[in-house]
């Protein structure tokens, strides 16, 4: 089947990679099953016509989302068009040098189908495992990203900071594909500092959206837009905004509610708390017919303005793979209407989300940015190694 590259809104899914018991059967999938299911879900996302698959990053059970670039590279090898992304990459506890290397490598392997969303991670005990302190979360995110930003843009970096050992004459290899770093989003539920950071660099801002009321998402996005304009990257309505969302669909509304309720009631994070009805009215969660999900999703624009990327969380709370794949089929069915709805009334000056192709075009074309240097460890050139 011919897959055409869509313009306008990017639509996709994101996963946190939780291994959660199915509350209706009591069965917990094995890590192996969950890892393979993640790949199946991503492939299905491309099959039904979605644009983006993003994986979270966790370094503690019950999650299988460590080593995100391994997962994304494996998916890249089995897909043609899907953009591989993250939700989120832990900029606080991961060495920015490793992020620079891993995602540049993924860019090359996937022919540019990669971008990232930076996040801090909210699990306190994980930080000390990586020699960090969650109380420095904002500072870590700011300093580490400042280094990452340079590593992708400068061939040789001298750097000294507070949180990482200094670098002298360091080159992060491989260099970004076509001389263009991956596009970066910054995700935060409630820290204006992170929206400020996204605005400063002219990067995208992603709001998780799924746990908190719309009124809050609205404030964070408005703040980012205003600061994006302040830093001179364009008008506020040209800032690059992404939102999360979650739904459960069946052809018939009542069936959706009946089937989803036990998953909702026992879900990690909000389970055993508010009722399904209260949560669906207070947050973007939509449980109902495809038409209801379509209408609710198109209403997000009412409070954040025309935006660039919509990702849905659909594989959490112990939902079995078969159900998740059915959700993707239903999402695929309303996809044309979602695209048409988002395109309706969208002003021409509102940009699409940057892609590798658009960033290369903006840079004036692709250039090979390979660094052919003397091996700074052995002092020899690669050619000499071959002839020796």
């Amino acid at each position, binding site marked *: 089947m011919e897959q055409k590259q869509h313009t306008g809104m990017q639509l996709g899914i994101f996963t946190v990679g939780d291994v959660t018991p199915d509350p209706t059967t009591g069965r917990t999938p094995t890590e192996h099953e969950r890892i393979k299911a993640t790949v199946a879900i991503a492939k299905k996302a491309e099959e039904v016509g979605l644009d983006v698959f993003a994986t979270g990053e966790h370094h503690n059970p019950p999650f299988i989302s460590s080593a995100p670039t391994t997962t994304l590279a494996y998916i890249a090898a089995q897909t043609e068009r899907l953009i591989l992304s993250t939700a989120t990459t832990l900029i606080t506890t991961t060495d920015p040098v490793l992020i620079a290397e891993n995602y540049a490598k993924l860019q090359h392997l996937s022919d540019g189908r990669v971008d990232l969303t930076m996040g801090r991670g909210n699990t306190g005990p994980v930080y000390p495992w990586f020699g960090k302190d969650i109380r420095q979360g904002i*500072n870590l995110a700011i300093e580490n990203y400042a280094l990452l930003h340079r590593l992708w843009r400068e061939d040789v970096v001298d750097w000294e900071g507070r949180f990482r050992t200094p670098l002298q004459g360091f080159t992060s290899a491989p260099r970004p594909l076509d001389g263009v770093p991956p596009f970066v989003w910054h995700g935060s539920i409630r820290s204006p500092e992170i929206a400020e950071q996204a605005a400063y660099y002219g990067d995208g801002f992603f709001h998780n959206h799924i746990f908190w009321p719309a009124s809050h998402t609205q404030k964070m996005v408005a703040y980012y837009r205003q600061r994006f304009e302040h*830093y001179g990257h364009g008008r506020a309505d040209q800032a690059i905004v992404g939102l999360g969302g979650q739904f459960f669909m069946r052809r018939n509304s009542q069936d959706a509610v009946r089937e989803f309720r036990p998953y909702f009631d026992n879900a990690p994070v909000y389970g055993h708390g*508010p009722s399904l009805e209260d949560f669906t009215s*207070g947050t973007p969660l939509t449980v109902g017919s495809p038409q209801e999900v379509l209408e609710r999703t198109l209403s997000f624009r009412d409070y954040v303005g025309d935006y660039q990327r919509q990702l849905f969380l659909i594989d959490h709370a112990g939902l079995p793979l078969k159900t998740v794949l059915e959700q993707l089929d239903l999402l695929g069915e309303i996809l044309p209407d979602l695209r048409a709805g988002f395109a309706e009334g969208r002003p021409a000056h509102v940009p699409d989300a940057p892609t590798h192709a658009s960033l290369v075009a903006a840079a004036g074309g692709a250039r090979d940015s390979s660094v052919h240097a003397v091996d700074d460890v052995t002092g020899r050139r690669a050619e000499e190694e071959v002839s020796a």
Partner: protein
Amino acid sequence: MTRLVVVSGGLSTPSSTRLLADRLTEATVAALARPVEVDVVELRDLAHPLADNLLTGFPSGALAEAVELVRRADALVVVTPVFSASYSGLFKTFFDVLEPGTLAGKPVLVGATAGTARHSLVLEHALRPLFAYLRAVVVPTAVFAASEDFADPALQQRVERAAGELAALLGVASAPAAGRPTSFEEQVASPVAFEDLLRRASTPGT
């Protein structure tokens, strides 16, 4: 207009905790001798949203309104029943879900009720440290009422003394301490430029 918000943690109806809260409120309004807008937050009505907030991380509906009332208040009257030698869990939960800094610099009059006077030091051993931690300004007189106190004129004297102290604090217009903004609303209202964030990020001790 002075905004006074009353937080009452009583569970029964009628509630002796609310009764004490009302007496403290009336005395404060009288002592202020100027227009006062009084709002009462009954925590009993917010029990479910409070439990939800613990799990979801955000206040919903009526709780969000109550939190906003407290945030905008010029002064608070807070009264809890004594449960197991301390404030009630419901009372503590309400103050647990407030954003850090919400009470900073706010004058607070604390009160407690119990079935016996043997609990009276709960005000000094539990409530005062709690509100000191939250950086509120607690008036010197805290008012405790055991069941028998409601028939004792001495209770009214303590109520009026505490109310006078609260009014005096409002008279000197105690404003929240200036400094680094802490609440989300304050941060959004006055952005910290990225250059400053970057400098702060790399400065030890920040």
